């Protein structure tokens, strides 16, 4: 099956193997023994080393935790779906300001046409009773502002759209 990890596509299969199972990826192989424990928990043995893996998944992602480290794998969407997603986000994510969770706009700090630099404050959002100042991660020009002070914004909505400054060829 295909999984995406850190924006890289991985193709991996589990086959039966001499020690129980074999992970096959890129034509290379790793023999391991996998045992099922309580729901979402697995015991992996590799040449004596023991690993407990916890797995939680939904339609889009598979999360795995091993000894305090979390791995987030994404399940590839159909290409078409992906493309339309990309469209709606208008390219580079640093230029599209979205709330990480449903938020209230406390104060928009910029106007359309403003030049902003890395670290400049763009907007104050409130979630869970806490104010959060969202700063720009790029040097850019404010292209669109889609919400006003007091508005509620859901996740996935672009609040502020930035664009590369004119004549800037770096990006």
């Amino acid at each position, binding site marked *: 099956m295909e999984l995406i990890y850190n924006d*890289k596509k991985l193709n991996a299969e589990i086959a039966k193997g001499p020690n129980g199972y074999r992970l096959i990826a890129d034509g290379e192989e790793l023999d391991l023994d996998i045992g099922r424990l309580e729901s979402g928990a697995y015991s992996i043995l590799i040449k004596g080393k023991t690993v407990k893996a916890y797995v939680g998944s939904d339609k889009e992602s598979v999360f795995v935790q091993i000894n305090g480290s979390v*791995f987030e794998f994404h399940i590839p969407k159909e290409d078409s779906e992906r493309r339309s997603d990309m469209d709606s986000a208008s390219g580079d994510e640093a230029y599209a300001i979205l709330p990480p969770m449903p938020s209230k706009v406390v104060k928009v700090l910029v106007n359309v046409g403003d030049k902003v630099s890395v670290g400049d404050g763009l907007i104050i959002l409130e979630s869970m009773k806490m104010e959060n100042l969202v700063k720009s991660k790029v040097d850019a020009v404010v292209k669109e502002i889609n919400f006003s002070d007091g508005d509620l914004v859901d996740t996935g909505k672009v609040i502020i759209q930035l664009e590369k400054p004119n004549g800037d060829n770096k990006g």
Partner: protein
Amino acid sequence: MLKKILIANRGEIAIRVASACRQMGITAVGVYSEPDRTAKHIQYMDEAYLLGPASPLESYLNIDKIIEIAKNADCDAIHPGYGFLAENSDFAERCEREGLIFIGPRAETIRLLGSKIESRKLVKNAGAPIIPGMELSSNNFEEYRKAAEEIGYPVLIKASAGGGGKGMRIVEREEDLADALESASREAKSAFGDGTVYIEKLLKKPRHVEIQILADSTGRTVYLFERECSIQRRHQKIVEETPSTALYPELRRKMGEAAVKIAKAAGYLNAGTVEFLLDEDKSFYFLEVNTRIQVEHPITEMVTGIDLVAHQIKIASGEEIPFEQKDLHQRGSAIECRIYAEDPENNFFPSSGKILLCSEPTGPGIRCDSGIYSGYEVTVHYDPILSKLIAYGENRRQALERMSLALKDYVVLGIKNNIRFLYDVINHPEFHEGNTDTGFIPRNFPEYQIPQNDNDKLKYALAAAVYHSEKKSPAVGVYGKSEAPTPWETLGAFRLF
């Protein structure tokens, strides 16, 4: 003894209070907002009643509705937990008027100590040390400006009604003062319904050290030693420990006695916490009194062996505290880490969503006060605290060792959380040395990134992900070379083999 208590809260603290009630044979009555129908806390109640919609004002802050439920359910008392109505003197007064026992101090005490400005006066009169700052709030920017100038920059803006870091701002330069006052006041208004703010001196490398007290209706007041709460992000504590590495027996006694003096001056009843700032020269200054059970109360329970919530209930029942100061001793060391739904890589921005899998650590000396479970949906409506992990040890080193292992064993998948960040905090060399002050996190973790995972673990994780995803019954046939796995040279830094 009380017979039936309404617990006007949610999450882990509501469960904590319900456990104490049920152990003592007291009926625990819970309340919940609409999205909290399947929250963990109501599962620990004997009875539970719907408050209203998600919004706190319509649910956990809805005084009329809570009083109505308490009376209809024939409760004799209300425990407010922390947050929400816990330090609301109007609510305490309303309870008193309606014949319900409010498990906490008297309304007048809450009102007095709830005003940072009033409480500073009280403490000054009682002869305990206070931090230089404004004695009054104001509506006039000029007065703030002058006060800041007199005190000397940097200064700290604080909400008079505040707590939990809300409505606080550090101001380094006069030109930032106006904006900071406006923003702090707005946040305070939104959080506490009161936008009053004031200014005080910002100590350079202060520790936040607080003293737990208990006082009964006969006036007996004891202190249960300190908690060091210097590890804060966004002015909110995330790691607390006791004993403090900065105290020695004489200083501990002095701070404890100052706390008792302040409590007595305020006519204090029930459990409370006197917060101090401890300067590098070991001077300490009164900060505020939290007139409720604290989030971090379990570490005091671990080292003193005393159940603070049970004593809150007994004191509210009119019982006398059954021990004296000389009976109380600290033993060993305890540390608490607060588990939040938040993104430590993005300025600790709160997170929400469904917890796809949750597995909580156990073991000798480990206590986990939790409000979550596998499948629980973290909503945006309330404080993002998920649980508290507490570790006891014979000494600080063992407490830290146990905490480290417990954090590694703590599994919360599906939403961003600060578990890994906490692990990195308590394993930081400065933390190990006990060199903790309120600037610890900004200084040591200015741009925190979760450490890169290693390739071996990635292989195992991939195997588990595939095994799990293939409907838990990997179909692939016979052992042998697979035909055509796609190349993954693209993998770059994550090349597996």
